[in-house]
């Protein structure tokens, strides 16, 4: 790769980068050693003030790491400048794939969250048959590969009931897409159900009792008192699942849905390059950063009570 005639992969620039990054690491290690001996002067749990020398070392490490950052950025520009047309067509095709990935993600969240609540309620039901049914449901859906479940949803109707699914279409969506949404929703509902159940069961009994004595109906108690507090409790672990789902959408390629990872695979073999995979990775990461930000804001908005 080159930019303005400079090669980044070898030569003087590369040597410079390598040296500077080694120095940066040395700086960090030294500062860490200083901090450790410095900590001994403070009582346990006290807030530790960084010595000036450590601050300087950190700043030096940051500056020394800069060439590497520049090198990475320039390499990316190099990717573009080497063959602009190829790059943009890659972006375009991956963008289309991303549309499908996002579609799977979006509909799965829409369906699996409420379904998870139902499964959680079912598992906690006092009626033995209902709770047994949902316990088995969660056990199977969590205990078998998601890929297998997707295949079963897709091929199941034909093998079990002889229904041909090839012609089924809802709006612009074919059955491959629909089957992957069904598969993902059923699977993620099982995980969400366990998260919700944990949240609901962690609620102190006193909240139910206070609501009962005040005369709230069971419905009012659940929707006004319990669930709003459960949301706060389950948000971190539910966020975990949501972010995993973004990456799991790539499993839809077993149903030949042209989601982003399928596209990236096809492009990678056509171009004999890993570049499409790296760009796809960037797409996934950008999406997850966005989700993280939204979840963070959401969490912050509930910080007014503890």
């Amino acid at each position, binding site marked *: 790769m080159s930019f303005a005639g400079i090669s980044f992969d070898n030569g003087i620039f590369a040597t410079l980068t390598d040296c500077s990054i080694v120095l940066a690491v040395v700086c960090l290690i030294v500062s860490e050693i200083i901090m450790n001996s410095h900590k001994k002067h403070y009582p346990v749990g006290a807030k530790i003030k960084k010595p000036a020398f450590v601050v300087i070392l950190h700043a030096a490490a940051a500056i020394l790491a800069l060439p590497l950052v520049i090198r990475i950025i320039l390499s990316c520009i190099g990717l573009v400048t080497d063959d602009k047309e190829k790059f943009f067509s890659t972006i375009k095709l991956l963008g289309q794939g991303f549309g499908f990935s996002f579609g799977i993600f979006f509909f799965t969240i829409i369906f699996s969250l409420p379904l998870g609540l139902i499964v959680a309620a079912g598992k906690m039901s006092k009626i033995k048959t209902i709770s047994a049914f949902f316990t088995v449901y969660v056990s199977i859906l969590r205990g078998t590969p998601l890929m297998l479940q997707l295949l079963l949803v897709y091929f199941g109707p034909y093998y079990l009931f002889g229904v041909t699914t090839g012609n089924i279409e809802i709006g612009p969506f074919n059955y491959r897409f629909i089957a992957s949404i069904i598969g993902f929703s059923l699977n993620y509902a099982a995980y969400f159900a366990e998260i919700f159940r944990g949240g609901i069961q962690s609620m*102190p009994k006193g909240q139910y*009792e206070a*609501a009962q004595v*005040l005369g709230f109906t069971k419905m*009012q108690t659940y929707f*006004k008192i319990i669930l709003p507090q459960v949301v706060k409790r389950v948000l971190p672990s539910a966020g975990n699942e949501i972010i995993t789902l973004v990456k799991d959408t790539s499993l839809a390629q077993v149903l030949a849905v042209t989601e982003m990872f399928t596209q990236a695979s096809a492009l990678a073999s056509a171009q004999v390059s890993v570049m499409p995979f790296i760009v796809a990775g960037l797409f996934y990461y950008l999406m997850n950063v966005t989700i993280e930000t939204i979840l963070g804001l959401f969490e912050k908005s509930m910080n007014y009570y503890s």
Partner: protein
Amino acid sequence: MNILEMHDIHKSFNDLDVLKGIDLSVSQGEVVAVIGPSGGGKSTLLRCATTLERIDSGKIVIGGDVLCDSADGKIHYCDKNMLSEIRSKFGLVFQNFNLFPHFSVRRNITEALIHVHKKSKEEANKICDGLLAKMDLTAKADEYPCNLSGGQQQRVSIARALATNPEIIFFDEPTSALDPELTKGVLKVIRELAQEKMTMVIVTHEMSFARDVADRIVFMDGGVIVEEGPAYELVTNPKQERTKAFLAGY
């Protein structure tokens, strides 16, 4: 007229008999303190009266309405409508407050008024402001429970119990989770309620408070009422050996 009547109450958890035939009635305007060692059944008695536990046999009447009866040998509880009618007649103050942490102080107090008692928002707010003034918490109306001291939280929960204008209030060890300093403020509020002739049943370990505020003290141990009588007399001159032994500890 008796606001609360409990007759021959039996309650067991699995094989453990917690209440072994309790009789207790509380007349209007009366303040009854229930004292006794831990595990003696005081809290269970209160939880049975406030519908949080179902009794095995006996009869409970609150404000003239029959909550449950076992006249024919089997316990029968009243239907749903009567149950909510009865629940609107009493208030309960918990040992650990059980405020709703996601609601402001104001909403903690008004929520039941608006959504259970179908009062308008203005009406509910008016009741709330009155109660907060009485509890010396006017400035805290828009705070959340986590920002209040234990004593303030307990006073909010007393205000919440009072909001629906109940005929009787039950206190389940209202100061046990508080330090002596915070206890004072809560006891002061309960004392004022007693002066206003509020009917109250108070489970407590604050012996001097019980002696001063209650009209009658009930001493419970081992699932039975060992002794009961006028507050001052029971504390200063107990008749039963068990009561003497217990009070000697204070």
